[in-house]
């Protein structure tokens, strides 16, 4: 608390630039915080090939291959279906959770997860519906 008690008076040129230092520290701190958070939490949109190469969490935009069906195991709480990515490659997807809302009418799905042994292990599947105003989907 060694703050100049005359701080609230008119500025004098000799004074130590506390304000600048505080502003500087805040800006540097926030920038660092922002960049590290961005780097650690960004998730790339990509295709199956790259997801396989990267081996980390990514998002794949694609469509459900209807002919291959879908199934939900309610005891394990696992939903599985087949996804065709935007380059046409097909991959089985296993979602930890129930069937997403509007799954059947979705025009596309966005699966977030990682490739593990030829299967895309998804933590969430977003469905994009040809719907309206706040047409819903669920994770």
């Amino acid at each position: 608390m060694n703050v100049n008690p005359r701080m609230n008076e008119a500025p004098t040129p000799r004074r130590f630039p506390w304000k600048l230092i505080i502003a500087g520290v805040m800006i540097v701190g926030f920038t660092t915080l922002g960049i590290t958070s961005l780097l650690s939490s960004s998730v790339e949109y990509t295709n199956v090939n790259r997801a396989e190469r990267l081996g980390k969490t990514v998002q794949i935009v694609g469509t459900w291959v209807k002919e291959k069906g879908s199934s939900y195991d309610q005891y394990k709480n696992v939903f599985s279906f087949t996804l065709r990515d935007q380059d046409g490659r097909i991959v089985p997807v296993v979602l930890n959770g129930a069937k997403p809302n509007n799954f059947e009418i979705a025009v596309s799905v966005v699966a977030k997860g990682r490739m593990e042994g030829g299967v895309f292990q998804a933590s969430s599947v977003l469905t994009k519906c040809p719907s309206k105003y706040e047409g819903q989907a669920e994770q």
Partner: protein
Amino acid sequence: MIGQLGIHLLFGIAVASTVVYALSLRQASKGLEQIGRILFRVLTGGLVVSAVALVWLIVTHRFDYTYVWNYSSRELPLHLLVACFYSGQEGSILLWTLLVAAIGSVLQPYARRHGYESSVMVFYGLILSFLTLLMVAKNPFAYYHETFAASGITALDVPENGRGLNPLLHNAWITIHPPILFTGFASMSVCFAFAMAGLLRREYHRWIDIALPWTLFATAVLGFGIMLGGFWAYETLGWGGFWGWDPVENSSLIPWLVVVALVHTMLVQKRTRGLVKTNMILAVISFVMVLYSTFLTRSGVLGDTSVHSFVDPGKFAFWILLIFMLVFTVLGTILVMYRRHDMNVNREEFGFKTREFMLSIGASLTMASAVFVTIGTSWPVIMEVLGLPKVAVAVEFYNQIHRYLVPAVLLVNGISLVVLWRSTSVDRLRRGILPSALVAAVGTIILALFGIRDVWPLALGFAAWFSLAINLREAWRLARSGPAMLGAYVSHTGIALLMFGVICTSSYSSTFHAVLVHGEPKAVGPYTLTYLGKEQVEREFKDREKFRYYVRIERDGQRRVVAPVLYWSDFNQRQSAFLEPGIRWGLINDLYVSPKATGRENVLKATTVMRGTTVPAPVDSALRLTLVRFTMPMEEGPSADGRMQMAGVVQAERNGVTTELRVLTRISTTSAGPAFDPVWVNLPGSTYSIGLTQINRNNDDPSKSTGTFAFYDTSKPMPRAREEFTIEFSDKPLISLVWFGVIAMVAGFGLSIGRAVSALKKKSPLAAGELSPSANVESKIDQAQTTVGDSDKS
């Protein structure tokens, strides 16, 4: 035809009103001002007529209008039909424009009283010109036959029924949430218009007093609207939480954060005459962020990243939105830059131990939050514009940032109430902070004893206790001065409570997955859950099949029944169920039951196959099944008990050996549609049996009909015949604080509006001649005597 012409006409009137107001400003002409005013009233009247006309078309089922066809249907009750007015883009733009105009017709006499009419209305009119231009692009009065002229539709082809409203939106919230949110958005224009008027008139202080009640109003209403959205998601949509950092949620949060910062910096200027430029800049940003949010959520640029979906608005609307945003950014920037030296009136610095300094820090932290949320939300767009691979940020980004920001804001809030305007003694600082810090420390220990062990929730808890203690103490001291003084304290208490709710639900909730069997109690965590059976509701509607599933929750002899809802709707051809949670509301905790699946689709392992396609058997991937065709009831004849029979002809192939199976199912007709009772057939070379549990006939193209086949292991006991209900069950402690907190926050703003308005009335409206900086000194002294801090000084 009339509707479409009318919209073009409205655009013309909006432009005319703006131009006339601008001319009246230039020539200081009362007559022109009056014409501008009349034009503005005509515009408002025209918008009201358009809105009423659109509602009328919807209510009378005029499906020859594309919008009516696209968003409504005959089945909807009146309150939902009215809501259809704004469930599409065209209508929601009309609603927004209408609300801007409606607020404008309150603003215009208000501004006139303060001598600001032309200078405010010229900017306000410009905003309305752009909004009406958007309406021209997204005209709600387009005819069906015009929209689909390319597919050979003529004026004689009027659809029998509309496409209807997404069943998830069939509840009271859609009649409440969007109008409130749009009122919030619309009222953000006012503060911007006043700031611009202040710049035009070179009155850099007076606009603050006049605009403050409006800014408080915008903050309160937008905040309330955002909370209602969260409540809707929690109560009806079954997302399980109230906030998910979704782009659409973020896009309403960003302008709110900016306007919260602005309210505080405006307060600083009111008291100290500092932060003149900051306020101008923030007023511009707050409005531009409203436009940016609209752009993000309506232009389709965030298509893949949101759980909300919006139809692509088309090129024209996209460019109008973009230009709308750019015009106001450039306009605001030019005006601020042009006047920057003129505004350079008070170069006085704030001392550290002053309220103005603390409020500035608090506003900076709030702005930092706004900046980070903006960056996070825009990240996919930024990366795309830069030509880099598209990347989205995970929810973790927002959590990580706010782990630092929110506790800091709460601490600064606490301290800002201890320090006084202009200067504070070290002794007062110590007396104010130490007891509250002690309370906060004890409170944090209590949180830890209740099982919260992570450092971040505890840090947030400490900050929230600290802020709460100081706010309550100050509120208690000021209570005798009447409720009008308490606005800020009530709001900040609300925020602290909200944070407690966030801490408890995020780090102390427990969630279980459970399969409940009809009538059998099942232990789930510390609770015993029993599925008691279901009841069909809303039977009068033929377009849906809706069930209430009763689940009993028991603990320590206490019993509660909740009723999650699951329904099938023609909206998605009954392909998958719509779900609503069942909630046992409580002050201490909520018990939340989300339906996940029912016996209808998921008793056994199952797969759905289209005719003519091949899939691997879900129980054995070496076995490939091809659905060749369905046999007709005629072919099969009735079953022994007289039920209709059909069969799926399936080729089962393993290692090149193909067996053809005829999988029969018996069909009975129930009120809820056909029910399928499979005749189980053994799968060659395995212990599994296959049964046909559902046939989905595709009426447009029977060759695309699908069958659902289920499998079970004959070596194990037959799966239960009793009905099963799969749920996710959560115990959410103190989530009630989230709602109470936000309500307190909004109520606090309400009190502050009252105070700001009455403070304004006390002053002579034409008092301050603010053109010269020296004239400020007297009013500064005058103001200093009416500050909150004064009661402390004595």
